[in-house]
Structures are given as C-alpha cells and as structure tokens.
C-alpha cells in the first residue's frame, strides 16, 4: 500500500501523465472537431502514424522542430481533405472510408520511411523537444517537476483544448459547426453551407490528429518505429464519446486515461514476475471499451453524425 502511495507521490508520475496525455489530447480534439460537424474520421490511426513519420523525417532532414510539427499538421490536413472528399462530396460510408484512409496513410508512411531511411540495427534519432523552463513555475517544489517540466507541444495541446472549447460554444463558427453536425438541412436553411463547414472541420481536425502523432516522434521519443501509435487513435475515438463531444471534458478524459496508463507502467516495474506485462499493456484498451459502455447511451451524440448530406434531399 505504501508502495502505491510512493508512486502517487512521485513527481515523475505526474510528468509522465502530461506527456502521455498530449497525443491523446490532440487526437481526441481532432476527432471531436470532425464529429461535431457530422463526420466520423476513422483515419485517425493512420493519420497519427503518418504525422509521426513525416514530422520526424522533416527534422531528420534538417528542419527545426516546429517546422516538423507544421509539416505533420499539413500532411494531416491533406489526408483530412481526402476523407472529406470521400465522405462529404461523395457521401460514402464514413466507416469504410476512414478505415481505407488509415490503411493507406499507415502503409504509405512505412513505405516512405523505408525508402528514405535505410534499415539499421537501431533506428536513427533526432534531437526532440526539450522541456520548457517556465521561470518561477518550473522551480516550485514538487509542482515544478510534476507539472511544469513539459515540452512546448504539451502546453500547446492544453491551450488548444481550451481554445476549441471557446470556439465551439461561444463563436458563430462553432455554432455553424454544431448545426452542421446536428441538422445540416437547418444549417443550409440559415445560409450556411454544411459541406464547406464539414470540409473545414475534417481538414483542421485531421491536422490536429497528425500533430498528436508527431508529438510521439518529436517530443515523447526521438525516432520512428512503424507500429508506435499502437491503437492510440482508436482510444481517442472512444475518448470522444466519453467526453460527450465536449473539448473541456476531452482534456480531462485524456488526462484521466493518461493517469491510468502512467500508473500501470510504474506498477509494472514494481510487479514484474508476479503479473505478466501483457496484462498491464491491455488495460488502456479495456478501459477505453469500458468508458464507451458507460457513456455511449448517455452522451448526446451530434444527431447528423454519419449521415451524408445531399443537397435537396430532405
């Protein structure tokens, strides 16, 4: 029992929580934005993978870290455009189109990576984001190392969550996005083009997703390994439901989830031998499924989610 308390009392745990949460925050925000406008984007796993790869590749080729992040975001936007074209203009099944984008984006990222980076014993590294020193805050006892020794993208992710909450609930743009996701015909009747709104939301959301992936290679770690995203994209999709499509709750949900993940990692080192490590690795996925089971019925899903909008068909 005291061992558990030791884990909780270590600043390292909380720092890990924020670090683990960052890609989840970005991915969930991205998925949330797409779904609020009415489009489910199952391309997230592939987009995060590609973002991780291309961001890293850009830096490996000499770009600075922020450019790498921007390149990743851009690539995400392109895949978002593809998904939007299939689901919004053509009105194809959002499920299958998203899966297709995931398969394409991941396999394409592996192909490009293998083409450019020769196979070696250990994968090549870059110098990732360093923890940002916030004068005053980073020096506080316990709180400093726990919460304020993160890299810049982490703080960016938290700010983006707050920004998105504002945009969605307090601005005309956010209202237009929400209306497109609730009743696109009503949006059209008020002079808004729901197809344009959906294109914009899916593109921007996919850019966020790719940034989440790039965080893995540019901050959390420093190299790209093909299977490194490990289903985080699907966890983000579950977290969107858990957050009831609200950015503030998405932030909290990602942090909560990251807490369990960071905790189980430390528990693993304590209990090696007693419990197989696979059990620990399973917990994030099982938790996500449980979160879905709890929230799916209660959450207020955007009513037009997954319904293609065809002009003139009422």
């Amino acid at each position, binding site marked *: 029992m005291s061992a558990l308390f030791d884990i909780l009392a270590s600043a390292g745990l909380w720092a890990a929580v924020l670090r683990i949460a960052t890609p989840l925050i970005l991915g969930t925000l991205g998925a949330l934005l797409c779904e609020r406008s009415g489009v489910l984007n*199952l391309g997230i796993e592939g987009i995060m993978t590609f973002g991780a790869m291309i961001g890293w590749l850009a830096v490996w080729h000499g770009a600075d870290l922020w450019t790498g992040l921007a390149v990743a975001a851009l690539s995400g936007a392109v895949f978002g455009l593809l998904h939007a074209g*299939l689901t919004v203009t053509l009105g194809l099944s959002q499920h*299958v189109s998203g899966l*297709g984008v995931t398969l394409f984006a991941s*396999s394409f990222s*592996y192909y490009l990576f293998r083409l450019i980076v020769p196979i070696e014993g250990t994968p090549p590294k870059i110098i990732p984001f360093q923890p940002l020193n916030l004068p005053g805050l980073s020096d506080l006892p316990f709180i400093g190392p726990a919460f304020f020794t993160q890299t810049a993208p982490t703080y960016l992710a938290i700010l983006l969550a707050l920004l998105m909450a504002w945009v969605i609930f307090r601005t005309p743009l956010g209202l237009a996005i929400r209306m497109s996701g609730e009743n696109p015909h009503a949006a059209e009747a008020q002079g808004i083009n729901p197809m344009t709104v959906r294109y914009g939301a899916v593109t921007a959301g996919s850019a966020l997703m790719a940034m989440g992936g790039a965080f893995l290679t540019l901050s959390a770690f420093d190299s790209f390994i093909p299977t490194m995203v490990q*289903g985080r994209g*699907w966890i983000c999709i579950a977290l969107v439901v858990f957050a009831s499509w609200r950015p503030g709750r998405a932030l909290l949900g990602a942090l909560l989830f990251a807490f369990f993940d960071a905790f189980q990692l430390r528990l693993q080192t304590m209990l090696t031998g007693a419990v197989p490590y696979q059990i620990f690795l*399973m917990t994030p996925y099982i938790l996500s499924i449980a979160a*879905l089971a709890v929230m799916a019925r209660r959450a207020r899903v955007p009513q037009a989610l997954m319904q293609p909008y065809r002009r003139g068909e009422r």
Partner: protein
Amino acid sequence: MRFERRDHRPLALVIATPLIAVAVALTLAGGLIALAGAPVFEAFGKIVTGAFGSRLALTETLARAIPLTLTGLAAAVAFRARLWNIGAEGQLYLGAITVAGVSAHLLGGLPGFVQIPLLLICGAAAGMVLLLIPLWLRLRFQVDEVVTTLLLNFVAILFVSMLIDGVLKDPMAFGWPQSVPVTSEAMLPKLVARSRLHWGLVLALVLAVAVHLVQSRTAFGLQSRAAGLNPAGAVFAGVPLGRTLVLVAMISGGLAGLAGAVEVVGVMSYVTTELSSGYGYSGIVVAMLANLHPLGVVLAALFTAAMFVGADAMGRSMNVPSYIADVTVALSLLSMLVAIFFTQYRIRR
C-alpha cells in the same frame, strides 16, 4: 454539378468496377515505385512473376490466399448485415492459439481425421466468442462495434502473447517466443508436395460457396440482408434483429477464427505474434473489392495474395520496399469505394 441516383445498374459496369479500381490503384502504385527510382514496368513484371511465375510462386500465392479468403468472407458476411467487424485480426489470433493449446494439451493423441475437424471447430468458436463481446455491447449499451472490435484486436494479440510467454510456451524453441506446436497428426496434408499449399484451400473454397448459398437461398440470408439494408423495415417485417445479428456474428467471427486455425494446422504448426501479416485488415479490403459477394471474395483474395507475394519477391530483387503491396491494397480499397459510388450515381450538370 449534381449527383443523381441511377435507376438501374448496368451489369457490365458492376463487373468492371473492381477491375477499374485495381487499375487505378496499380497506376498510383506505379508512381510510388517510380519515386523509389525503380523502373516501373519492370517492377510490375517482377510482381507478376513473383506471384505466378513459378511452381513455388503459384503455390505460395494460393497458400496466402487461404487466410485472406476466410477473413474476406468474415468481413463480407458481417458488413452485409451492417455489422462492422473490424476485429478479424484478433479473432484470427485467438483461433490460432486455441488450436495450438487444445491440440498440445487435450486432443493431441487423436488421429488426424478426428482431431483436425475438432481443432477447426475450436478455433472458429474462439473467434465467435471474441466477436460476440462487441455485439453484446452494441445490443445492450448501443456502443458502436467499430471501435470495440478494433480495441479488442490489441487485447487479443496481447493475450496470445501472454500465453506464448507463459502457459503455452514451447520449451524447446530458442530465440523468439512461440507456442507449443500442434501434434503432427493435426497438420493438414499438403495439396502440392514440398510447398506450403495445403487442403485449407479446398476448405476455404467450399466455405465461400456455402456462404453464398446461405445468403442467396435461405430465409436467414434474406433476413440478414434486410437487416443490413433497412433495420427499421426489417423489424417491422418481423425479422428478429438481435437473433439475426448474433448468428451473423457467429458466422463472421467463426470464419475469422478459422483463418487463424487453418494457418496453424496448415502451414505453421505453432503460433507466434507474427502469425498474421495483417490478414484481418486485408480481409476488409478483399470484401470491399468483392462488393461483399462471397464468390467475388475468392477472386479478390487471390488478387490481394498475388500482390503481397509478388511485391515481396520484387522488393527483394529491386530496391523497392515491400510495403508497396500494403499501399496498393489500401489504394484499391479507396478507389473501389469511389468506383462503387459511380455505379450508383451519375453526374448531372
């Protein structure tokens, strides 16, 4: 520019659709091969010879087509009823490890013609169970099964990994962890000597025909099709939606579990975490290329297998990463979706 729903789908267009989709995918893949600096047509030639050019290549392609046919059928059966089973990968692994465990610890002594069918049934059952969990979550809690089947893939593979490290570990294998092997009586005989092609191919073909007959001739087939096309209309007509979906899930999960089981008793004899090179996910592409038709699945699986085997061979001799196969298959899915759209809608100014 508007899209207008077509009244009739010209048969020629329907048949041409997958061919057009594949052609588009291959063209785009050609671009990627050029990006690698390799001569495109020579590369395609190497893919074809790598897949069909020799006895070894042909048997290898057919052997690869077996699990792809089974996972393709699994996806086709499920998608037709609007059950989004993306968990074939996990169901496959679970089927495989069940077979290894049951043969090694329970049924090992039995003669082949008794043991093999029992093992296959066990493998199928394992796949069924794994899919019934997300289905239950959907029926009871209205949880979308896409995400749950996906997440369970990771859980299932970790579970298999755990068993391979622990209870079902092969004490005689050094190096990579692998499961105990099935007993030698439990291996399927080869169709072609000194190759990897086994009688599982016949099983896969028989199952494809069986699925087709069930879908087109039986009342259950009609009901599950109605459930997928219009659930509200199906309910009104008295189709027992829950029961129908359970049956569909059993068939779909069973087929995916069977894919894993067949790989074990046909090719590998033991299980590792590398048993499947994404057969579960490729099965979805196979199903879509076949437009969810069971007999089309056989052809689509053959094409997909040829892509993978051929690209492997090509990649070894030229400097093109073998991932080109995965990219081409993914592109085929996307272009197939677009092509299907144009069989249903025409463009109007």
